C-alpha cells in the first residue's frame, strides 16, 4: 500500500469513527452520486449507439439509487443521533466546512461535480470515447474507495451493507466501460482510446495537483493574514474596539435618479 493510500485509510477511519462526520460523508456521497446520475442520464439521451445508451441508462439508474441509499442512511443516522450533531456544533467543530469529509474525492462538497471532474453536458464537448474513458477512470477509483469504506464500516452493518451493494454496481460500471473501450479498440480506434485514457488519468492527476496548489496557497495566505492581524493590525484593532457603531437614521450619500446626475455616481466603486 502506498503512502497516499495509507493516509486515505487513516483519514477515512477517523471520519467513520465520528458520527457527525459520518453523517456529512454520507450526505456528500448522496450529492455526488445524484450529480453523477443526472449527468450520465443526460449523456445517455445524447449518444447514438444503442448499446452505449443502454449501459449509460443503467449506470445512471445505479447512481441515482446509490444517492437514495446514502440519503436514506444519512436521514436515519441524523434522526438517531441529533444530539451528537448538536454537541459537535456546540463545541465549535466546523463539520460543515470540513474538507476531509468528502472521502470520495478529497474535495469540499462545493467543488465536487460528477465523479470529481465531469460536468453536465461534457459528452457534447468531448465526444463518446473520452467521456467513457473518463467514466472508466472515475469508476476504477470509486470502486477502490468504496471497497475501503466497506472495510472500515464493518461495525455498522447497515452502512456496510450499502457499500457492499454499491461495490457490486461499481464492478459492473468498471466492466462495461472497459468492454466499450475494448470494443472501440478492436474497431480500429486503439489510438483514440489510448489517448482518451491517458488524458483522463492526466486530468485527474492535474486536478489533484491544482487542488493541492490552491490549498497550499490558501493555507499560506491565511497564515500570513493571521500574522498581519496579530502585528500590523493589532494597534488599529485595539483603537477600533473603543469605536461604537451609531444606530438611528443616517443621511444617505447618494443622489436620486435623475437624468445625468447619478450616472457619474455609478462609475466609481466607492
Amino acid at each position: 500500500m502506498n503512502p497516499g493510500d495509507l493516509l486515505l485509510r487513516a483519514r477515512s477511519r477517523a471520519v467513520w469513527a465520528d458520527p457527525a462526520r459520518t453523517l456529512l460523508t454520507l450526505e456528500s456521497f448522496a450529492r455526488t452520486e445524484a450529480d453523477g446520475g443526472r449527468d450520465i442520464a443526460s449523456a445517455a439521451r445524447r449518444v447514438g449507439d444503442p448499446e452505449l445508451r443502454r449501459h449509460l441508462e443503467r449506470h445512471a439508474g445505479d447512481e441515482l439509487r446509490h444517492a437514495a441509499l446514502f440519503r436514506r442512511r444519512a436521514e436515519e443516522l441524523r434522526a438517531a443521533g441529533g444530539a451528537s450533531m448538536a454537541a459537535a456544533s456546540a463545541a465549535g467543530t466546523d463539520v460543515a466546512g470540513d474538507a476531509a469529509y468528502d472521502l470520495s474525492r478529497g474535495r469540499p462538497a462545493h467543488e465536487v461535480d460528477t465523479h470529481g471532474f465531469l460536468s453536465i453536458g461534457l459528452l457534447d464537448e468531448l465526444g463518446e470515447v473520452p467521456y467513457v474513458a473518463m467514466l472508466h477512470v472515475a469508476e476504477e477509483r470509486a470502486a477502490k474507495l468504496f471497497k475501503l469504506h466497506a472495510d472500515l464500516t464493518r461495525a455498522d452493518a447497515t452502512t456496510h451493507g450499502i457499500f457492499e451493494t454499491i461495490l457490486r454496481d461499481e464492478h459492473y460500471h468498471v466492466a462495461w466501460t472497459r468492454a466499450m473501450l475494448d470494443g472501440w479498440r478492436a474497431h480500429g480506434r486503439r489510438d483514440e482510446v489510448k489517448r482518451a485514457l491517458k488524458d483522463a488519468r492526466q486530468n485527474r492527476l492535474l486536478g489533484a495537483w491544482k487542488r493541492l496548489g490552491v490549498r497550499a496557497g490558501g493555507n499560506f495566505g491565511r497564515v500570513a493574514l493571521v500574522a498581519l492581524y496579530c502585528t500590523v493590525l493589532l494597534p488599529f484593532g485595539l483603537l477600533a474596539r473603543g469605536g461604537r457603531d451609531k444606530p438611528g437614521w443616517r443621511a444617505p450619500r447618494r443622489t436620486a435618479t435623475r437624468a445625468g446626475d447619478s450616472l457619474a455616481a455609478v462609475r466609481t466603486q466607492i
Partner: protein
Amino acid sequence: MRVLGLSAFGRDAAAALVVDGRVVAASAEERFTRVHHDPAFPRRAARWCLREAGLQPRELDAVVFHVKPLRQFERVLACQLRAFPRSITTFPKSLFTWLGDRLWIRGRIAGDLGVPPEKVLFCEHHAAHAAAAFLPSPFEEAAVLIVDGAGEWACTSLWRGAGTTLQPLGEVHFPHSLSLLYSAVTEFLGFPPGGGEQRVMELAALGAPRFLPWLTELVRREDDGSYRVDQKPFRFAFDGERLYGQALCDRLGSPRAPGAPLRTATPDARDADLAASVQRLAEEALLHLAAGLYKRVPTEALCFGGELALNPRACARLLRDGPFRKLFIPPAAGDDGAALGAALWVDAAAAGAGAPRERPAPVFLGEAPDVTELGGAPLAGERAVLTALLEHLQRDGMVGWVRGRGEWGPRSLGHRALLADPRREDGRARVNVAVKRRESFRPFSPVVPAERAAEFFDLPAGAEWPLRWMQIAVPARPRTREMLRAIVHIDGHSRPQLVHAAEDPALHRLLVEWDKHSGVPVLLHTSLNQRGDPLVRGAEDARALWERSGLPAVVVEDRLLTREPAAR
C-alpha cells in the same frame, strides 16, 4: 440603452437585461448551475440574457454590479477591526475572499463578459433594491421601504418614489440588521440562513411567542422610526458563517442541529416558540418602520423590497396593520432582484424623468423549455394538453407542468409548477413523498381564478399584486379549511396565487375545467423541484426530476412524460 445588471457573492446571484426601459430577460444563476441559492458570479445567466436578446457583449452600453465593492470592503474591514480580537479566525477568511476575488470585480466582469472596463458600473445595493421595488411597480408615486441583510453599510433604507425618480430619505447602518437577526435565529433553529427563513416563518404558526419580550429588548425601537439591534447575542457583525453567539445559547439553550427533530409540542415547544417570537418581532419592527416612513411620505402606496419582503406573513401584517393601503413587492425581492434593480437604476438615470417605463414589468423573464430535448410525439393541441393535465390530476392526484418562460424570483407562478388535488386528505403527504420531501409542518399553496378567490379566502384590499405572486398569507374561509386541508396551514392561513384569465389563460382554463370535474376551482400549487434543488429550468431538468422522483407525470409544453403510456 442596453444595460445588463448583475448580482453575485450575496445570497442569490443573477443577471437581468434591460433594453430601453423594458426588461428583456432575467434569471438567477442557480437555474443554470443547479446549486440552490448559488452566489457565484452569474456567468451563465449573463450569457443567457445576452443570447436571449440576440446581443453581443460589445453591444451593451453598460454592465452594472449591484453593490459598491470598495465601500462594502470598508465595512467588512471596519467590522473585523471592531470585533478585535474575537475576529482572529474570521479576519483571514474574510480578507482571503476579498483579496482573492471581490476587490477585482471590475476586471472579472470585463474579462468574463468581454466588455471594456469603463462600461462596468456600480450601483449601491439599496439603490438597486429600491429601483427593483419601485420602478417596475404599477404606482406613479409611492413610499419605498428596503429591509435587507447588508449592502455596503445600509441594512434598512427609506425612499420616496415618483415617476422614474427615487429620492433617498434615510438609512440604518450595519450591524443593525433586522434581516440578519432573523437569519441568525434561522441558523440557531438548524435551518440554513439565506434560504431557511421561510421555514422559520412557517414553523412560527406552531408556536407561541413566549421569547418575544426578551427579543424585543434586543431590538430597541427609537422615536424617530429607526431601531437598534443589541449585538451581544450575535456574531453576524463580523462572522458570515456563524451568525449567533454564545449569549444566545446561554439564553435559549443549545441550538437545534440541522435535521434533528423539531421541538414543536408541549412540554417542549422551544423551536416553534422561538420561531413565533422572531416572526412577531420582525412584523412589529416592520410596522414601526412603516409608521415612520408614512410620516415622511404620506401616500397610500408602499413598495417593499429586500430579504424581509420574502416573508409573506410579515407582508400581510404590514398591509393589515400598517398605514399604507396598497402594497407592491417585486417578484424577486432578494439579492437576485438587485441585479434587475441595478440595471433599471442606470437605465432610469440615463433616460431621464420622462422616459416611458414598463409598469408592472413582466414576471416570466427566464428561459423557455426546449422540447426537442425530449423527443417523442407532441400532444395534439392545447385541448389535449389540458385533457392530459386533468386526467393525471384525477387519476394520480398530481401532475407537473412546465411551459413558457421561467419565473423571475424564487416562486413558481405556474410555469414550473407541481399541481395537485387539494381535496385529498393525504394530498400534502403524497406530494411530499413523491417529490418535495419537505418537512411535514410546511404548507403548500393554492392557485385559484382571481374572480373566485374571495369564496375561499379572506382577501385584503390593496393586495392586488402580492396576491398575483403568492407574496402574502391570508386567512382561509371556514369552508376552505374544512374542504381543502392540504392548502391551509395550521394557523388557518394560505398563500394563494390569484390567476387572471387575461394574464394566464392556460392556467385559468385548467382551473375552470378542474372546477367542473371536482367542484372546486382550486389546485394545490408548489414549485416543481425537490428539496434543496432550484426550480426546474427546462425540459431536460423536468425529465430528470420526473425520473428520480415519484411524480407520476409531467407535461412539458406539448409533450407528456408519463409512467403509463396507455394513459395517453
